[in-house]
């Protein structure tokens, strides 16, 4: 039987014991004939054994309560209970301020970081996107004014993403209130009347965070954070359909 040459990859696979038995034997006999290589491979095997033994005790430690999965699932279930979701949303939107926080605080842990941003984008979408009369405060025709307003309030240079390649036109935007201060909201629509909302604000928690999908009711989208600024793009399409648009927004924001 003709033998394939032994590669560097084979040597590592030999160390990691992931070769087919036949190949494992071939490598073993190669090593017998090449003591220099064998020495190196033995050293790698020793490393592997040593690392595994040195780290094994960590996996045997009892888990702290914070890592109790049942508890994590339960606290999330309470947080997501639909009735409370609606009540919290109503309170935040209608009352806001201290009243909203007190009631909300007694029910659940405050939402922070990317999760909070995602929630705020969903609230903004639910409030402004269905508005047929005045969905935006400043129209796209005055976008320079919009950019200036948002940049002043956020103390950050804000750029309006251009979503023309995805078939969405800027309708306009406004500064909206969030539990973490002012945020800039931009709204877009396409030829089918579908609307998208992009919400952006400075982040205190999660200053950098990967693209994270979210769904709440029939509003879905993605949130992420780059260099201290958080972004959330939401609409009524399935999250996956919005991913390329979110990627485009992120790409443009990075070139500010």
């Amino acid at each position, binding site marked *: 039987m003709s033998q394939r040459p032994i590669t*560097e*990859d084979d040597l*590592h*696979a030999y*160390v*990691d014991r*992931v070769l087919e038995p036949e190949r494992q034997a071939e490598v073993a006999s190669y090593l017998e004939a090449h003591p220099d290589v064998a020495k*190196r491979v033995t*050293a*790698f095997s020793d*490393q*592997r054994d*040593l*690392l*595994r*033994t*040195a*780290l*094994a005790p*960590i*996996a*045997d*430690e009892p*888990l*702290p309560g*914070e*890592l109790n*999965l*049942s508890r*994590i*699932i339960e606290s*999330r279930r309470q947080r997501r209970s639909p009735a409370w979701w609606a009540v919290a949303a109503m309170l935040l939107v209608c009352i806001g301020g201290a009243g909203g926080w007190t009631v909300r605080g007694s029910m659940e842990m405050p939402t922070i970081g990317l999760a909070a941003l995602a929630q705020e984008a969903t609230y903004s979408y639910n409030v402004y996107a269905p508005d047929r009369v005045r969905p935006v405060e400043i129209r796209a025709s005055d976008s320079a004014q919009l950019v200036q307003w948002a940049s002043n309030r956020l103390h950050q240079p804000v750029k309006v993403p251009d979503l023309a390649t995805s078939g969405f036109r800027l309708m306009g935007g406004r500064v909206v209130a969030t539990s973490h201060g002012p945020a800039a909201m931009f709204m877009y629509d396409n030829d089918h009347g579908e609307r998208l909302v992009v919400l952006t604000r400075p982040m205190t928690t999660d*200053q*950098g*965070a*990967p693209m*994270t*999908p979210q769904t709440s009711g029939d509003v879905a989208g993605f949130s992420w954070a780059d260099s201290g600024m958080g972004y959330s793009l939401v609409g009524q399409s399935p999250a996956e359909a919005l991913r390329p648009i979110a990627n485009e927004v992120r790409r443009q924001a990075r070139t500010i």
Partner: protein
Amino acid sequence: MNDMLLLVEPLIPALRRYARALVRNDATADDLVQDCLERAVSRWHQRREGDPRPWLFTILHNLAVNQFRQAKTRGQHVTIEETSENDLGQDAVQERKLMYQDVLNRLARLPEDQRAVLLLIAVEDLSYADAAKVLDIPVGTVMSRLSRARERLQQEIEGTANAAPANVVPLRSMK
């Protein structure tokens, strides 16, 4: 939710071990694992069918990378905990513990990307293909990085790498 408990719970010790060995700070590591589990619970419906291990390690790894990045932009070093002699036992046990601690201290001097690949493959038993998914790099890159990691760790163990930083206890000289 039941399948989530059945599939994820047994993996928590391994996630913890990976986080701890990668960031070398127990509290930070547990925070990362907690964050990872919360994300896993909230995105459970988005995972692909099959073994959730690579998926969970991907979430954890990305969180750890963010953590490294944030620590860097804040101009802080991720604390590396060295074991003090008081923590160690006696005699033969002590000798073995020193050896284990020694290899972990040497591992800590590898660049993050090399440490990650070595831990995922040599300790957590991920396949090369799964490690490639977790690290979001091609399998060929996994192999070359694994090779570099092993060479580098060997140099560290043999003491032929660049001089140790001053804060690292020279455990080998205590034999």
